[in-house]
């Protein structure tokens, strides 16, 4: 079973991964965005770890809801509302249980990803974070490691796609040949989940 501490470790591991990979995220965001994805997420997840330490919510749902709200309040741009909604809606779907199982988490994450797709209007294949998240959630039934691998593969598979959402869509065909920064940071989030599970 997964308790609040597990979810705190997930968020801390995500913050560390974003810190470590910030330059790469920003570099990916240069040719098809505006070169700030790394610094924006860094600001957000630093704020997330700070507020989780301060308020210490004691349920899995509480941790993710608070983390999501904090991202919405500190990141801005498109990634703030999108990542914030992902975590907040996943957290709300987990309810107030003190511990949850992997199947409940997989189901809750699917609710979160659906909310992201609805908010951003993106579908798989649009060259967005959805391309990493959807396969990851599908693979979570198998194992955390499988979810991580599926997210990484999904992010990599955005390279030949033409962007249809967000700022990269202005590039049209010129967006082809670049890996999507949002899908890449989503893969980091799923890798951090596997890390928190010790896989």
């Amino acid at each position: 079973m997964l308790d609040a501490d597990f979810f705190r470790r997930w968020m801390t591991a995500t913050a560390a991964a974003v810190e470590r990979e910030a330059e790469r995220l920003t570099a990916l965001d240069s040719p098809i965005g505006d070169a700030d994805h790394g610094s924006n997420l860094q600001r957000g997840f630093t704020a997330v770890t700070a507020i989780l330490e301060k308020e210490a919510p004691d349920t899995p749902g509480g941790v993710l809801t608070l983390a999501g709200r904090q991202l919405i309040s500190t990141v801005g741009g498109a990634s703030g509302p999108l990542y914030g909604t992902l975590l907040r809606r996943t957290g709300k779907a987990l309810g107030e249980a003190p511990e949850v199982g992997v199947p409940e988490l997989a189901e809750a994450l699917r609710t979160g990803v659906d909310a992201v797709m609805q908010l951003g209007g993106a579908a798989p294949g649009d060259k967005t974070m959805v391309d990493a998240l959807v396969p990851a959630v599908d693979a979570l039934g198998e194992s955390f490691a499988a979810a991580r691998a599926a997210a990484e593969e999904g992010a990599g598979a955005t390279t030949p796609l033409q962007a249809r959402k967000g700022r990269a869509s202005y590039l049209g065909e010129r967006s082809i040949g670049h890996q999507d920064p949002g899908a890449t940071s989503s893969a980091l989030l799923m890798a951090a989940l596997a890390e928190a599970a010790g896989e």
Partner: protein
Amino acid sequence: MKMLINVAETVIADALRGMAAAHPELTVDVENRVIVRRDAPVAGKVGLVSGGGSGHEPLHGGFVGPGMLSAACPGEVFTSPVPDQMVRAAAAVDSGAGVLFIVKNYTGDVLNFDMAQELAEDEGIRVAKVLVNDDVAVTDSLYTAGRRGTGATLFVEKIAGAAAEEGRPLERVEALARQVNESSRSFGVALAPCTTPAKGSPTFELPPGELELGVGIHGEPGRERRAMMTSREIADFSVDAILEDLDPRDPVLVLVNGMGATPLLELYGFNAEVQRVLGERGVPVARTLVGNYVTSLDMAGASVTLCRVDEELLRLWDAPVSTAGLRWGM
């Protein structure tokens, strides 16, 4: 790239402190990043709130004041502000007559203002929202995020601001703002890229002998890259791109806008060419504004915005305004 800053992390806060010192007629909340006209909320008046990423100054903070915006929310450079800022601004300016959000059509701005609208309405504030999407360089299709909001934002904020100042109700102010957006089209070109403080190097590559036609206000690419053109050729291309999309039956307001690093000397020369093409195409010009209003940090280049106006819109355009960035008649 040398910049007149201390460190990149404090660029926004530093600018807000400087703005507060220069403009005692504004209330500048540096910590929460909200700029409000000092006499807000004005009894019976609809509040106008806009905001967006920083780096486009004087937009939006420089347009806060009597006759224009009630409040502005600056985000990080080129990054939309967060809903908390917008809700705080709405609460500060709402007199009970409601608040209009003026939102440039970028994914981040739209998402954050949508969330803010929901939160503000939860607090009992009546909120309407108008999207600005005037940039003809982007194909408006299901396969893009839609047309970007650029120069027309100034026209929307000025004209809706004048209507609000006259005490018009929220529905009317919203309808006028929508009319201005629908009557406006823009086209921009970049001669040199811009540099964000956080990155410290140009956000895109543009070879010395080329220009980007149809550039956005964050240096996003537009239609195509070509060998450098003359002012005359750029004016022809820009105005024709706009007129393909805007039926010029009425007189127009003309904004010849600098992107930040192009001198006024060049902008006025460019305006002469813009006026020449408009004359050749039989488009009557009602008013013209030339200057740096919707900028893109230190990008070199310019944009043209045309707005078809009827008598009412023209009267509201001419109405008095008193802001840091735009001031006449009072």
